């Protein structure tokens, strides 16, 4: 009885400390149904990592005209640029405080060019020096202006034998690097991203997706006649849907419209991280590929794999992909392991009808919905911030603090694999190998386990070297000794002098 009381008291006390240590931000009832996949690729429900802070429509912002088919968001500092394609305008919002946005600028033309009116602009980028690059799709150009919108120069259709001369250049998404080079994805150009030097010259294509084909299709094509071949699908690389340049100048490019079998065979990648040479350097150490949902069966009439429409990358290499197919957001860490997935199609806050663009300020996410003409702003919850905090602390070498943060994550969600692996990695850095091994084994992290085990084994051997040598010697010497004794005994028994 006493024991029971004591146990109850302990439980109550621990529950109280948990409640005090992690005050839940008020969000009862509403949830985004966050989940992750575990090692077995089973769906594990997860506390929300993000919650909708607010939804911005033209009315909330005090604009006179509603958005019409907006296509892109861009963040620079605390300014949020909304490219309102259908109205040929660009709206600039400034974030005054955490929740407050005001329109600071709204323009549909530039100054000092031959054609000043923008015509269905599709994207915007801001250079380091404050110059503005606008993908002016209807005018078949990318125009560069200074921060006051005075025309500086323009980038036009690249001259290349691979591009037909009668094709109209339609720049879709652009990014610019610190040196003022422009990378552009354009409709109808599947050789990769169009790259321009800062002086406006076209300098080639970067990072074409590898062409995927399967062997049976290839064989059929070999035997097909000219007419049949024309009817078949041709093996061409897919065009990029969107591009994002991270802090270090690497381009994250997503090519959403991939075929199921190609994704399955991992011959194509929905998301790629391009270096200067255009090769894919994304780290993919997860237990499953970086392509969003693992199960593609039709729920609510939606089938097929996730369609990554846009991607945004935090400063610590965590990237969040936007799935247009199911209206979900997928967060991956710098090792390419899924850390959360949430969202869906619908009309509630935090759900989308046709999301097209995602951006971030710090760890807050903005998602632009083309049909709802609204921007949804997500802010991290207690749980989400703890995950980010733990990762940041680990990256900065604060292993004790990182472990503590991961412990808190684990307390909030005992099914969260990354928490266990995170604790294990902190312990590994702190050279507590035995404990680290336990955490890795729980979540089947074989590589980290091996790393910890190799160190543990080394230490063990060092401590017990005396015993090991003793045992080996014993193994050799005892049988040898027994043999010798037996031999002597035998010799004595059979010796002639003792024979009577």
């Amino acid at each position, binding site marked *: 009885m006493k024991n029971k009381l004591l146990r109850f008291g302990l439980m109550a006390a621990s529950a109280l400390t948990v409640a005090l240590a992690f005050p839940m931000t008020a969000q009862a009832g509403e949830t985004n149904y966050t989940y992750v996949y575990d090692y*077995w690729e089973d769906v594990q429900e997860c506390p929300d990592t993000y919650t909708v802070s607010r939804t911005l429509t033209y009315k909330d912002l005090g604009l006179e005209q509603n958005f019409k088919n907006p296509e892109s968001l861009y963040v620079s500092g605390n300014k949020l640029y909304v490219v309102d394609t259908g109205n040929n305008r660009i709206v600039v919002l400034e974030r005054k405080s955490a929740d407050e946005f005001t329109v600071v600028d709204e323009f549909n033309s530039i100054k000092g060019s031959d054609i000043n009116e923008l015509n269905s602009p599709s994207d915007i980028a801001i250079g380091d020096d404050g110059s503005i690059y606008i993908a002016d799709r209807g005018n078949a150009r990318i125009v560069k202006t200074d921060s006051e919108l005075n025309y500086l120069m323009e980038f036009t259709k690249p001259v290349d034998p691979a591009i037909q001369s009668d094709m109209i250049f339609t720049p879709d998404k652009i990014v610019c690097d610190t040196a003022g080079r422009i990378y552009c994805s354009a409709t109808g150009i599947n050789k990769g991203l169009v790259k321009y030097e800062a002086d406006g010259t076209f300098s080639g294509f970067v990072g074409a997706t590898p062409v995927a084909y399967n062997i049976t299709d290839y064989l059929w094509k070999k035997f097909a006649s000219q007419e049949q071949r024309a009817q078949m699908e041709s093996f061409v690389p897919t065009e990029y849907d969107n591009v994002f340049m991270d802090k270090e100048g690497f381009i994250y490019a997503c090519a959403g419209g991939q075929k199921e079998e190609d994704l399955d065979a991992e011959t194509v990648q929905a998301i790629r991280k391009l270096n200067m040479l255009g090769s894919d350097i994304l780290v993919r150490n997860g237990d499953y590929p970086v392509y969003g949902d693992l199960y593609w069966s039709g729920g609510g009439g939606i089938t097929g794999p996730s369609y990554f429409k846009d991607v945004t990358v935090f400063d610590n290499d965590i990237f969040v992909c936007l799935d247009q197919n199911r209206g979900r957001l997928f967060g991956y860490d710098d090792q390419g392991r899924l850390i959360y997935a949430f969202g869906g199609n619908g009309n509630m806050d935090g759900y989308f009808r046709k999301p097209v663009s995602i951006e971030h300020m710090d760890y807050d996410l903005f998602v632009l919905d083309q049909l709802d003409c609204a921007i949804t702003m997500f802010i991290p919850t207690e749980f989400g911030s703890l995950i980010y905090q733990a990762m940041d602390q680990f990256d900065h070498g604060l292993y004790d603090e990182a472990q503590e943060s991961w412990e808190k994550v684990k307390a909030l969600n005992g099914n969260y694999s990354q928490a266990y692996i995170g604790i294990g990695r902190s312990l590994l850095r702190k050279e507590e190998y035995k404990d680290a091994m336990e955490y890795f084994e729980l979540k*089947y992290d*074989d590589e980290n*386990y091996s790393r910890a*085990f190799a160190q543990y084994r080394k230490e063990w051997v060092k401590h017990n070297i005396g015993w090991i040598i003793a045992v080996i010697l014993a193994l050799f010497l005892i049988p040898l000794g027994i043999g010798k004794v037996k031999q002597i005994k035998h010799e004595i028994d059979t010796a002639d002098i003792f024979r009577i």
Partner: protein
Amino acid sequence: MLKALTKKETYIRYLKSLKFSLYCMTHPLDGFWDLTHEKRGTYAAANTILIITLITRILKLRFTSFLFIQVYWEDINIFLYLASILFPLALWVVGNWGLTTLFDGKGRLGQVYMATCYGMAPYPIIQIPLMIVSNFVTIEEGQFYSVLSMISLIYCALLIVAAMGQIHDYSFGKNILFTIASLFAMLIMVFILMIFFSMVSQGVAYFVSLARELMFRI
């Protein structure tokens, strides 16, 4: 029968026949000839080897390092898991005997069973040490695991083929031919069993629905 259990000679003969499986491993042709023709093997030893093999297979799940075998415990059915050895074994023994007995095979049904069980001896002998060692290596050093594991299976297969040739007194070519034929016999038996079970279940379902209908009317 039970009286034999009280005699010491029974145990000596049992241990001797069990030890003989080691001789069969290293000298398959000579060993498997003596196994039946010189009566150096016993059913008791054959059963023991089979049971040890089954136990090894279960122990492997639990005691191999997770680096090499990851077990989704929710999906494990221990009886089905054991059946994955026992069922093919039964099919093999019956199929092989059924064919060879028509084509001058000297081995009887029990002898086919005994020789097959003796042929499985390398499995526990290699797998048990492998299971223990797997816990003391890292994933980079783990290449040997899959290689040795594969070797143990190939070793068993070769021994069983060699054993069949010896107990039936077949030439090499004939032995290979009947090994392949036995595999086909296994396939056919699986096919017939599936038809049989589906027909039985449909037949039962018919009478069940008939009874339901009657009860509904009356």
